[in-house]
């Protein structure tokens, strides 16, 4: 089960650890209080702000999942 989780994590993570670290350090250096890591996290933020009332609808998640290439649980 641990190996499976490692595999899913490695294959599913769209941003490498190094990229994440760079995003965080650059954000801290620039004194940004809000540091969102990864393009899919940025996209979720945009979508939730655009349509907060729909953020927990099934079709909101499915549309997002299709857009960023997630497998739907």
């Amino acid at each position, binding site marked *: 089960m641990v190996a*499976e989780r490692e595999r899913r*994590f490695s294959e*599913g*993570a769209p*941003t490498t*650890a*190094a990229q*994440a*670290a760079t995003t*965080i*350090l650059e*954000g*801290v250096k620039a*004194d*940004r*209080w*809000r*540091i*969102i*890591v*990864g393009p*899919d*996290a940025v996209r*979720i*933020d945009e979508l*939730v702000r655009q349509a907060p009332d729909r*953020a*927990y*609808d*099934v079709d909101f*998640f*499915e549309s997002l*999942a299709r857009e960023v290439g997630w*497998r*739907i*649980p």
Partner: protein
Amino acid sequence: MTATRRLTAILAADVAGYSRLIGADEGGTLDSLRAIRAELIDPMIATHHGRLVKTTGDGLLVEFGSVVDALRCGSELQRDKGKRNATVPPDRRIEYRIGIHQGDIVVEDGDIFGDGVNIAARLEGLAEPGDICVSGRVQEDAAGKLDLTFEDIGEQQLKNITRPVRVYRIAIKHRLAPQWGLRHCHFQTSRLWGGVYNCTRAFLPMLPKADAGHIVNTSSVNGFWASVGPRIPHTAYSAAKFAVKGFTEALITDLRINAPHIKCSVIMPLPHWNFDSCQFAQDPERQSVGRNGGDADCSGTGAHRLDGPRCFKFIGR
């Protein structure tokens, strides 16, 4: 070959997403289904005085002499199945949809036929995986006799059934969400929120003595969006991460007024990020990097001192 009629309670069940499960792992799925039949379904039917009429690849049809027995069997089956599924990855879970109706049926050679059977099968199709849908007749007979909540979802026009049928939904699955456990909530709250709060409190007296400082708190995408999918409860984790984000946002003004040389940031990655793998130690600008891997109560906060030659301390999740 004699056909007889009788009034009976009919339970129809089928496996949600059967074709997907078979497509992904035929042998494993069939082995699992055989085990579920032998260990769970057949004993449950016997306990509640039911009769297994027939099975199909992914479904089964059971009759009971009593609506209460049928409901007890269906709800206990869903509860037990839910508990078993709690440790199975979502894409491999075998979940049943169940429909229950009471009606007049035709019995012939051990098989059962008629509108009553068809209505039970259509009700099953309306149920969410892990839940039960019943007809108005079942609800009327069982109301007050069982610890179940019947949610009226109105009259439904069922396929090939002439008259509309009033349908009630019994949400079994939602009672099983592991994140609702108080113990789990306490664990997540103390680890994800308490760690951030306690670490920040511990470092605050030291940070004002430095020329500059930066508090970095780890929240998550779940700090502004409490979801990892529409069918997975995520309450404890999301609540803790919302708290981290709110705390950091509130600190912005607090620090500007009381310690303007200290800044703060909140990091919001996807929930599956593992910050243990971040390569802070390889950054030549950072002289010292530590990770507190042993103390779960310190998770989620990096308190970064920037005094003199820059000293950067990161406390991982």
